[in-house]
């Protein structure tokens, strides 16, 4: 069949629905679903960030309160000095940002859950992946468009369920985002006589995660099948952009790991509500009475099942960012990716090894110490592909001709943050050193740096890079740059300072500082720096919002290929038509994804769908 005939066929069969509900809300179009995912992640990101600023504000003065309380103990009760200091403490404690310990833990838990699931898992895969995977491999849509829609709406349902946990009796769950039992499994286990979190909050939390597991499973199947089956002619696996490789590997990770989280959640739900005892050992003494309706389980079982998912999850969050960083570094340095094949193998290596290391979250948990040794060695091995990626990123810009447009800034920021964050892992992956650092702010700083902020820089990069493709308008460059500098500086200060606090032994998840070493001047100073920088950094995100709204309304018009990139999404119009490519005719691929600065070529880049002649015969063979 000739391509004209195919085009004619396409026009008849494949048309956008006219009803706005089917077109924009319950759409099966991967582009609409991608945007829906992205908006969901954006809203969640702001909710999650808001929560973190809120509890940082609470922590801001806890050090001072502890110091004043110390002073108070030196004074005679009722004396003038005593009353003055007491008044000072009260003033600090009754300020609008003060929160009860359980409220603090609730907000902490929700912060972690929202960001890990609704932002870090959702945006890079569901958002960017949905929109650009089919276009980059040259397909009309995902393999299963209706399942794709189902996947988004399940994610949305999961989000709503999680948000509902704020408003039910008993308030939000407060066993941390890891939800370790028995705290999460036994209602009324929050402390003597303390009523509350035994309520529905924890149930809704588990339910929300279970729904999320289904959504991720469906999404993962869709991504894998799309990548393998729907590639256009000429798009061999080794011609796929590294973003596609990253989404592909991420989908495999999600396929295999969420299945186990589902079980972890299911058993927790059963323990909570139906009297089973998978995670609850017998003879627990909680709330001043012996718990008689459970017997024989083990809290460690949950930790195993949870981290079996939890560690691959870290890579689910960061791998798409790695793919995008590689893509952007190459595109903006006008150079092929250094060691394309090594990059592909490294992504796979990270994915595979990521399943072998979950126990490094449990070194001090009472797990078998022999197993800990094995996990520790494997953890250090997984550092190798990460190091390969870093070296190859540096190799990619080496000898390049770097254009400092905002997507490139975010990508370079990603590399820098990835290095800084990754280095903490070399400490924490060693079981001996982890004895000191386990559950301290060092861990908090480390994982925020790498799976939090680095992944989010990947999202910023993606947003700025693809905004012209999605909307047809450029984002405002000065605003993007200002946002980049503020955020980059801010997050570095916040999380490096947290590493230092961890070095001093500061425990995680403390809502107050009843310890002497926590109310030392050093710690108080550090907490002050962190909170102030957090407020500054969070405020800087408003720049990003302004930029989005402003650019959408009044952005410069973008051409089809404003960045002069090579992958297929730049072969179509901005924004792409409903069928992704003009008249639904799929482009034919003749070149690798990173053909920049090919010697003797007419332009400094060869797009993937350019005719074979675009690449001069004199140029060295592609990888």
């Amino acid at each position, binding site marked *: 069949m000739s391509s004209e005939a195919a085009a004619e066929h396409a026009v008849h069969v494949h048309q956008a629905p006219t009803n706005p509900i089917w077109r924009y809300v319950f759409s099966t179009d991967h582009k609409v679903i991608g945007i829906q995912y992205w908006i969901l992640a954006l809203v969640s990101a702001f909710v999650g960030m808001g929560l973190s600023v809120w509890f940082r504000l609470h922590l801001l003065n806890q050090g001072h309160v502890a110091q004043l309380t110390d002073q108070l103990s030196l004074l005679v009760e009722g004396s003038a000095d005593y009353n003055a200091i007491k008044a000072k403490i009260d003033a600090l404690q009754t300020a609008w940002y003060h929160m009860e310990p359980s409220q603090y833990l609730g907000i902490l838990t929700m912060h972690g859950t929202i960001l890990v699931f609704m932002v870090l898992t959702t945006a890079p895969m569901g958002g960017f992946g949905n929109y650009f995977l089919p276009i980059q491999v040259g397909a009309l849509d995902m393999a299963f468009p209706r399942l794709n829609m189902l996947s988004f709406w399940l994610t949305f349902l999961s989000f709503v369920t999680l948000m509902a946990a704020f408003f039910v009796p008993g308030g939000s769950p407060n066993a941390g985002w890891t939800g370790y039992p028995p705290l999460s499994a036994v209602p009324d*286990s929050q402390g003597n006589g303390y009523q509350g979190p035994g309520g529905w909050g924890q149930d809704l939390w588990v339910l929300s995660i279970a729904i999320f597991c289904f959504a991720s499973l469906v999404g993962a199947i869709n991504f894998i099948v799309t990548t393998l089956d729907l590639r256009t002619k000429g798009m061999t696996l080794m011609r796929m952009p590294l973003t596609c490789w990253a989404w592909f590997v991420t989908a495999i990770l999600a396929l295999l790991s969420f299945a186990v989280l589902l079980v972890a959640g299911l058993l927790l739900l059963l323990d909570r509500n139906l009297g089973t005892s998978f995670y609850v050992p017998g003879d627990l003494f909680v709330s001043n009475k012996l718990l008689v309706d459970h017997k024989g389980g083990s809290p460690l079982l949950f930790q195993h099942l949870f981290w079996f998912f939890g560690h691959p999850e870290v890579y689910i969050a960061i791998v798409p960012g790695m793919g995008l960083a590689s893509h952007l570094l190459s595109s903006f340095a006008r150079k*092929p990716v250094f060691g394309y094949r*090594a990059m592909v193998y490294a992504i796979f290596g990270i994915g595979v090894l990521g399943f072998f290391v979950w126990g490094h979250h449990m070194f001090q948990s009472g797990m078998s110490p022999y197993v800990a040794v094995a996990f520790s060695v494997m953890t250090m091995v997984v550092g190798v592909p990460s190091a390969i990626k870093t070296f*190859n990123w540096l190799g990619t810009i080496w000898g390049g001709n770097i254009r400092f447009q905002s997507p490139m800034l975010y990508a370079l920021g990603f590399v820098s943050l990835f290095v800084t964050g990754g280095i903490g892992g070399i400490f924490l992956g*060693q079981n001996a050193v982890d004895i000191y650092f386990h559950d301290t702010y060092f861990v908090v700083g480390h994982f925020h740096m790498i799976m939090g902020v680095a992944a989010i820089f990947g999202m910023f990069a993606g947003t700025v890079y693809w905004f012209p493709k999605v909307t047809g308008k450029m984002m405002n460059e000065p605003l993007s740059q200002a946002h980049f500098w503020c955020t980059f500086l801010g997050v570095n200060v916040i999380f490096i300072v947290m590493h230092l606090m961890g070095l001093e032994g500061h425990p*995680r998840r*403390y809502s107050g500082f009843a310890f002497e070493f926590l109310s030392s001047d050093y710690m108080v100073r550090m907490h002050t720096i962190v909170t102030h920088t957090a407020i500054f950094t969070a405020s800087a995100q408003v720049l990003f919002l302004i930029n989005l709204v402003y650019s959408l309304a009044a952005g410069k018009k973008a051409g089809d290929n404003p960045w002069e990139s090579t992958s297929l999404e730049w072969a179509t119009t901005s924004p792409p038509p409903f069928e992704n490519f003009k008249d639904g005719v799929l482009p034919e691929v003749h070149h690798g994804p990173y053909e920049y600065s090919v*010697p003797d070529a007419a332009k400094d880049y060869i797009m993937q769908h350019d005719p074979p002649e675009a690449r001069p015969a004199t140029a060295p063979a592609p990888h």
Partner: protein
Amino acid sequence: MTPVIFVLVILGLVVGTVAGFALKAPLLPDLITEHGRIIDQQLVLTLYITGAIFAIAQLGLAYLIYKHRHRDGVKASYLQGSTKLEYTWTVATLVLFVGLNLMGQGVWAQMHLNEKPARPVNIEVTAMQFKWIFRYPGKDGNLGARAAEYINPAEGNYVGKDPDDANGDDDFQLLSMSVPYGIPVVVDIRSIDVLHGFAVREMRLKQDAVPGLSVNIPFTVEKDGTLEFPLSGNYAADLDKGELPDALKHELNANKLVWKDKASLRALEPGRVWRLTLDPDSINRPYLVKLENGRLNLYRSWYELACMELCGYGHYQMRSQVNVLSPVEYAEFVEKNSP
């Protein structure tokens, strides 16, 4: 302009971070255990190695950003990779990372895998919301049996001590931990409600307390105190008489330590070392006063014990303390407390 800013920011990041770690004094809290020294060595070695990797990688990034910034008329090289280089750094990082890891396995084995030391001081640590209960075996050196059915809050029997077990007759329990230095100690860490984490910074010791499981960790404290502050002048005669010199009182007050004339002061080695117990209202805060080279030095001999695993709303206040005693003092301590 942008590449220059970028380079400056990365320089600032590297200098700031390295300074943050280098200028932090002391780098780590005091160290009082034997195994802790190996952990510290490993930690500091890792810090040096990673510090170098960090600085080289970030500065390399900055250098490349500046060197290869866009300039008109310059064309990027068509460099697709270098197999040799890639093999080199893959093997190098593998050897470095795994080697570093294996170096730390000795101390892990010492704490978790090796035979427990013969005839140690046994202490049972029971975690509960939100306090720590320490049970000592008394003079016979054997802890009595325990079972959940014997838990009786009215009698303060949270650990579930079996009243019929003769081994337990001279057991005693306290809310703070006292350990002798120079003698191996094995703590038996357990929990009766939710997960808790036993952690003493200065001991380089951390272990979750898991309900339904008890974990034994051996350690040896090798120090009887860490220097708090020195005093000039020789007040040995006063101290031997049980009087606190004014200069010491002044110094204590200046350091927010409570001296309410209720504290006990006793000579451990008359004329040389005294034990000063401050603030008896709180759990127990013993200090050592030592005469060294004609100078009076005050040593802290207690350390804070924190809970490191989220255990409910009172997690942040689950505090206890570890007092370090001399072997002789420890024997007296057991003697005094055994019923």
